[in-house]
């Protein structure tokens, strides 16, 4: 198996403002969001990052996507360092998260061309890719509708398409089905499996066990910013369900039964 994404000893801390200190009733000035986190994803597999809210999943993904820089450690994306060559890494990955929004004034058609240009795609290649993706997600019917006038599901479809406009080999999805109705969630899940079939590598963060069980090959469990387990799904769930495994580990870490 070929290693395509290797995270080594990632650490990320955030300063806590006086306002946040008051809110969180803490005197700590620094919050460790991710601590000494390492994992490896192999080409063509879906790696699931599982953890509760605030565990450090999104921070990890944002470091991989070069939106934020690790305090310590590094991630090699197809051999390219996110610390030393973030611009190159951005060209290799697609990143979809709920914090990335689309300009409401524009239409899917305009946005697709705009992001294709930013990725340096040729016109012909762009048209071909647009047809393929718009047909796949049924976007053609609302290609000229402004984002502001779309439903949540339509927006999520457009966001998904925009994130993979350049046909990247590595795609990072942060909570890809969050807030979606069952139909759209199904479309997205099926699409992830289709991408996998095409040989794409995906890092998916979620707290939905069923989604991980359905699509992931390997799972990393993050608790309080630390990677406590990184294992093939089949091995992890050989004796227990993923949910039971997760809560056992969680209880062990917390030192008490949950």
């Amino acid at each position, binding site marked *: 198996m070929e290693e395509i994404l290797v995270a080594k000893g990632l650490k990320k801390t955030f300063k806590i403002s006086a306002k946040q200190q008051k809110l969180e009733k803490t005197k700590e000035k620094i919050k460790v969001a991710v601590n000494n986190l390492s994992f490896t994803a192999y080409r063509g597999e879906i790696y699931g990052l599982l953890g509760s809210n605030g565990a450090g999943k999104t921070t990890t993904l944002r470091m991989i*996507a*070069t*939106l*934020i*820089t690790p305090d310590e450690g590094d991630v090699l994306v197809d051999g390219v360092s996110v610390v030393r060559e973030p*611009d*190159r890494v*951005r*060209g290799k*990955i697609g*990143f979809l998260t709920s*914090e*990335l*929004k*689309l*300009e*409401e004034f524009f239409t899917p058609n305009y946005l697709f061309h705009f*992001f294709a240009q*930013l*990725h*340096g795609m040729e016109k012909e290649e762009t048209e071909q890719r647009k047809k393929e993706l718009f047909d796949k997600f049924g976007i053609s019917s609302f290609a000229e509708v402004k984002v502001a006038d779309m439903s949540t599901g339509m927006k999520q479809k457009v966001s998904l398409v*925009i994130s993979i406009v350049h046909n990247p080999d590595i795609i990072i999805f942060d909570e890809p089905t969050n807030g979606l109705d069952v139909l759209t969630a199904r479309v997205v899940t099926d699409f992830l499996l289709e991408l996998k079939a095409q040989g794409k590598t995906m890092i998916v963060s979620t707290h939905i066990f069923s989604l991980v069980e359905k699509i992931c090959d390997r799972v990393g469990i993050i608790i309080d910013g630390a990677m406590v387990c990184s294992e093939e799904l089949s091995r992890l769930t050989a004796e227990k369900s993923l949910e039971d495994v997760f809560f056992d580990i969680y209880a062990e870490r917390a030192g008490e039964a949950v």
Partner: protein
Amino acid sequence: MKSNVITIMKKEFARFFKDKRMVLSTILLPGLLIYVMYTFMGQGLSGIYSSDESFVPQVYAVNLPEDYANAEGISVNFIAAEDETAAKEMLTAGTGGEAGGCDLLIVFPENFAEAIAAYDVASGEKAPEVEVYYNSADTDSSTAYDMMMEFLDSYESSIANKFDVNSQEKQYDLASERDTAGMVFSMLIPMLMIIFLFSGCMAVAPESIAGEKERGTIATLLVTPMKRSHLALGKIVSLSVIAILSGLSSFIGTMLSLPNLMGEAGDISASVYQVSDYLLLLAVILSTVLVIVSVISIISAFAKNVKEATTWVTPVMIVGMLLAVTSMIESMKPSNLMMYLIPLYNSVQSMNGIFSFSIDIPGIAVTCVANVVYAIVCVGILTKMFNSERVMFSK
């Protein structure tokens, strides 16, 4: 119902008064800045309409009565004018205040003293006529005119109105259309242009940068392989174009409407300027917009949302307006080339020079180059800000 109204009012007051920045920018700052600005403007206007206290006007006189030469109550230097036309030409040329120049021309009828002595007010005949010529676009000439008119009025009253001053249908103000236009435009347009350009920039820059941060769309751009410097430059150039269009629209409107605003008092037209003047003006405006957009963009990048950006930009705009007022203050003209390095001040003074026909090419060159350099530095700062996760993703 009454208690609900009070509850809502309390909430609104709490929202406002607990936000120190809002209180500062909404209540304290406007009063303070208006006081400072009006004080500056007052000094400027008094500087425009009055000369130095030690000023002694050079008054060319035709048929000057002997007792006027050493008259008390007026401190002027009378010069016997042998050639009335030459004196008028000097006035038209705006030589007031200059050594050997002419501040005023006064034409008495021949044998003025005898004529007023012989004149009977009750006769119904035309009184002896004194003519006073001046140049309203020349501060010294205007001052000399006021002094002389006051003196003549007083003298006329003391001798029972036995003569008239400037009573005929003649043009006594010898200011050319060019001079008048130069004075009005150089005073008003630089200040208005700075305000227009700021308004244009404020309408688009906070929305484009702080707005993108607020809506989360900037993050979508930041995960593309595009260089951050390209993002910064693209934003600044496009915002500058929009701000220039907005500023030019206001500029054209002002230039066209100013004659209407001035009415008969200001027989002025923008046609007194050459194409080269407008090209120089365009160069100054373009470089100025780059500076204003860059500064507002940096402030907007620091702000968490559009509202915060607008709040922070307002004091900067008022400082810009204060610098703009220097176009009205004679004593604040640049004394050396280095002063053209001061942002906004340099633009105001360059525009002032263009409009008043006293173009300082080295000064304008320094202004344009300095402004472009400042804009490049700002693009660098903005690039660093786009790279800073603390700035871009601050909550």
